């Protein structure tokens, strides 16, 4: 026990005893458990436990998304980092306040939401909107359902949808053209070359396809995290290898997008973009890898994951091609989030048979 740890345990026991400070004990304990691994032994078998824990589990996602976050600074300047910081601070305050009022435990899920949320926003989103969005996402998307583990929807996407419906002008009408070459965005705070549409928007309006090479490496306007397909894919492969996400969801999602859009391009060439463009453009990769795979809001059985992914793909291509929105990843994931428990239930019924009610 070193000095720092002793100090923290002193603070913790002091706040516990003090009637005025009691309600922040939870915060102190959370900080303590974040800083020091608690040396608690298992008291029931198995006595041997895996070293994995929720903090590391969540941190692995942050690690996986870090390259894409760095790239967003490269493309759009340090303002991208400011958005991430605002998201963490505002969302963190909302989370802690809420859990203190509701006298619940502070959980680590916010580590992930806090960074994924700003990466789904356009690079020129005003900072105060980022704060509003993450607060709505954390409170209405997660805490009202009971906190991490109980939410129906992906909190980051709830925040994003709230922003796009509430501030449509600010969040979906103007896009920035990313900088490239040399140090690009690392040398400046923000970018102000404006364009009116993302590659998907351009396709919806005029049927012009952006070059695939740009889509892959990231020289295209779009949301912060989605600009470079390469880095998103790299993060996805890391998470699949680290078992943080299940490979079934992204594979079935992307696969069904590919197949459906291949068929769609053949049948309705003016409305459905060709498959490879579909895969690389917009937030599909980011959504398939970081959002659709959110363990809490997606199905948990293997078979249901396949079904979920296929439905996601069909819905995304349909929204992109036949609705008023050029992009459909967010809405399809949120919609399928609602069906995730149903898919699980169907799989369980298939595997174990229906629920027997012996006394009825």
């Amino acid at each position, binding site marked *: 026990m070193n000095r720092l740890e002793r100090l923290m345990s002193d603070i913790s026991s002091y706040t516990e005893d003090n009637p005025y400070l009691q309600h922040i004990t939870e915060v102190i304990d959370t900080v303590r458990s974040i800083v020091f691994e608690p040396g608690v032994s298992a008291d029931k078998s198995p006595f041997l436990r895996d070293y994995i824990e929720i903090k590391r589990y969540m941190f692995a996602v942050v690690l996986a998304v870090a390259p894409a976050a760095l790239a967003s600074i490269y493309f759009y300047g340090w303002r991208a980092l400011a958005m991430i910081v605002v998201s963490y601070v505002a969302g963190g305050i909302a989370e802690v306040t809420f859990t203190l009022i509701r006298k619940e435990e502070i959980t680590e899920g916010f580590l992930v939401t806090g960074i994924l949320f700003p990466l789904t926003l356009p690079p020129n989103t005003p900072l105060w909107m980022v704060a509003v969005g993450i607060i709505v996402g954390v409170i209405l998307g997660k805490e009202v359902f009971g906190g991490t583990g109980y939410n129906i929807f992906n909190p980051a996407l709830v925040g994003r949808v709230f922003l796009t419906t509430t501030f449509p*002008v600010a969040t979906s009408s103007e896009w920035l053209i990313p900088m490239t070459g040399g140090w690009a965005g690392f040398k400046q705070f923000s970018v102000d070359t404006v364009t009116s549409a993302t590659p998907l928007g351009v396709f919806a309006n005029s049927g012009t396809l952006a070059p695939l090479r740009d889509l892959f490496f990231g020289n295209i306007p779009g949301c912060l995290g989605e600009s470079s397909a390469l880095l998103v894919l790299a993060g996805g492969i890391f998470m699949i290898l680290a078992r943080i996400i299940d490979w079934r969801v992204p594979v079935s999602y992307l696969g069904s997008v590919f197949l459906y859009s291949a068929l769609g391009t053949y049948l309705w060439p003016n409305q459905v973009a060709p498959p490879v463009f579909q895969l690389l453009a917009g937030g599909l990769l980011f959504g398939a890898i970081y959002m659709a795979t959110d363990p809490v809001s997606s199905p948990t059985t293997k078979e249901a994951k396949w079904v979920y992914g296929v439905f996601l793909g069909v819905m995304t291509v349909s929204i992109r091609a036949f609705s*008023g929105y050029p992009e459909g990843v967010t809405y399809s994931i949120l919609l399928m989030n609602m069906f995730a428990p149903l898919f699980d239930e169907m799989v369980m019924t298939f595997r174990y048979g229906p629920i027997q009610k012996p006394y009825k």
Partner: protein
Amino acid sequence: MKKEIWMVVILVLVATVSSGVLGFVNVTTRPIIKRNEVRKLRESVLESVNVQFEADNLVNKFESEFRAEELGGKDIYFRYDDEGNLTGVTFEISGSGFQGPITAIISLKPDLETIVGLEILDHQETPGLGARITDEDFLRQFNGKIVRPEILVVTDAGDEENKVDAITGATRTSKAIQGIINDTLSEVQTNILTDKVMERFSHE
């Protein structure tokens, strides 16, 4: 048996009283309601040709400016100058917007291609977004634009005579307005008006 009769009696009684009261109120308010509707239409028509009016001289003003005629099941308002020359045509156009039907009043020059003015009568577009089609700034853009080959509502219109700026963030509604104008106009031009207007021209 007595119960059933009582039931009928009560129902009849209540219904009679109710319909009596409603009938009375209806008779009193119907003219007012009718007047309100006509008024609103006339206001829009007058606004579309940018004629100033006061609330109390609305009727006079309208009747002095326009002559209404029903052609092909559609109310068309013709406008003449002092010498009796046809100077404009005004009628209602409608079609589906992003959220629901949009009805508007459009005024044209006798060539049936140059827009004099556009007014929105009714719509259900998103407030703050699509609903901004009722903004003066948006509508005034149409004044003087020429529908040839068709009007285009685009993001950066420039000074072209058949293009207007769309509403930021409401691409769908903007496109809907574009569609409504082009479709209705071509239909009205070919089916109803051209002959009639030509006839007037030659006649006068």
